[in-house]
């Protein structure tokens, strides 16, 4: 987080967001140019359907244009803020669809709804590669294999507890406890390393 290129980029994006809040169309186009490839990749990975990913990306930027004023630089990095908007819309979309598609009685016997694209890096690899700072990498490495994979699949592909159970062929209770323990451990480790404020 401390590298200066990243800090410069954050500064630029924060300035663009500030201008977008004042309805500056050029700044908005530039913000889109700089951030849409990252956000589209995030959406594609979670939704696994280009059409849905495009739709979510559209909605997200429309929302950014309308709500850029609510972005408070002090509270989070601009790219974190934007990524969260897209991720949350993707997750809402997935969870809504589940509600529509699956009867409440559906269990872990359902067909796996998950088909990882063959040519992309596996989620666990992404977890480790994405954690740029050594402290983050170290923290991820402290996770056991099960929790690490469960968190990676949930984070990068939007899998729910039930989908994780199906995909990893583990009981739902095991999955829930892996995710909970994994997140707790990650938090303790990251906070201990002084990461994220």
């Amino acid at each position, binding site marked *: 987080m401390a590298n200066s290129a990243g800090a410069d980029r954050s500064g630029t994006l924060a300035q663009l967001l500030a201008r977008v809040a004042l309805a500056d169309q050029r700044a908005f186009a530039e913000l889109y140019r700089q951030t849409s490839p990252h956000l589209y990749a995030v959406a594609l990975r979670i939704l696994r359907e280009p059409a849905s990913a495009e739709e979510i990306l559209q909605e997200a930027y429309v929302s950014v244009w309308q709500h850029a004023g609510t972005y408070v630089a002090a509270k989070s990095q601009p790219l974190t803020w934007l990524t969260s908007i897209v991720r949350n819309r993707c997750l809402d979309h997935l969870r809504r669809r589940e509600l529509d598609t699956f009867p409440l009685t559906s269990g872990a016997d359902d067909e796996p709804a998950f088909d990882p694209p063959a040519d992309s890096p596996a989620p666990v690899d992404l977890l480790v590669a994405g954690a740029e700072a050594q402290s983050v990498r170290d923290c991820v490495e402290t996770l056991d294999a099960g929790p690490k994979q469960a968190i990676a699949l949930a984070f990068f592909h939007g899998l729910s*507890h039930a989908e994780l159970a199906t995909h990893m062929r583990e009981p739902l209770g095991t999955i829930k406890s892996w995710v909970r323990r994994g997140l707790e451990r990650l938090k303790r480790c990251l906070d201990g390393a002084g990461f994220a404020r």
Partner: protein
Amino acid sequence: MDLARPDRSERLDRLAAEFALGTLPSRPRARLAQAARTEPVVAAAIGEWEQRLAALAIAIPAVTPPPRVWTAIASRLGLAAASTGTASAIWWNRVGVWRALTLLAFAAVLGLGIALLSQRAAVPEASIVAVLAGADGKPALIASARRTDAFLLVKAVSTAPVESGKALELWMLPTGAAPRSLGLIRATGIARVPLPAPTDSSLANIPALAVSLEPATGSPTGLPTGPVLYSGPIERMY
């Protein structure tokens, strides 16, 4: 349940973590999102987790969305760009490009007057000069011609190496119209670029030139398809 109560902080943290990770099922997810809108403590707990997990998303390889996404966004918001297509395809129509060109003109022409003068000396009677600069504002190419010549001399001053399988293509940027290709140019040395007519007439309504990165055989569409590496306004010395 009031998640904002201090004695609930552990449960709130766990819910916020699963919210940010994405594993909360639909109904608890909707309830927590609703609570975050009215309870700053809940919003902050979610924000902290989003921040923690954000570092993980950095390595996802970027994927450029199709141009129609921007078109749809601009049209839904009624933005000026709505009628002109995507941000990348219409760069020559964006005011920002022209503002940048103007700034580059000052930076390049004024800041490097000596280079320009020596270049003019090397091409006697040059009456049209364009200094094409990259994003860093440094001149990369200098194009010059006499009014009566039907060709441009384009000298590479400091261009970045071109990867194999790619080539540099030179474009005229007419006012209010799409760019017109002047063909491929070399990334080193001096290229002699033929014009359809003497510069006086063929560049009459051309305020600027640009160079884009294209496939080795040139743009397949007749319009720039790759990034614009260098651009600059045409200076007329008459």
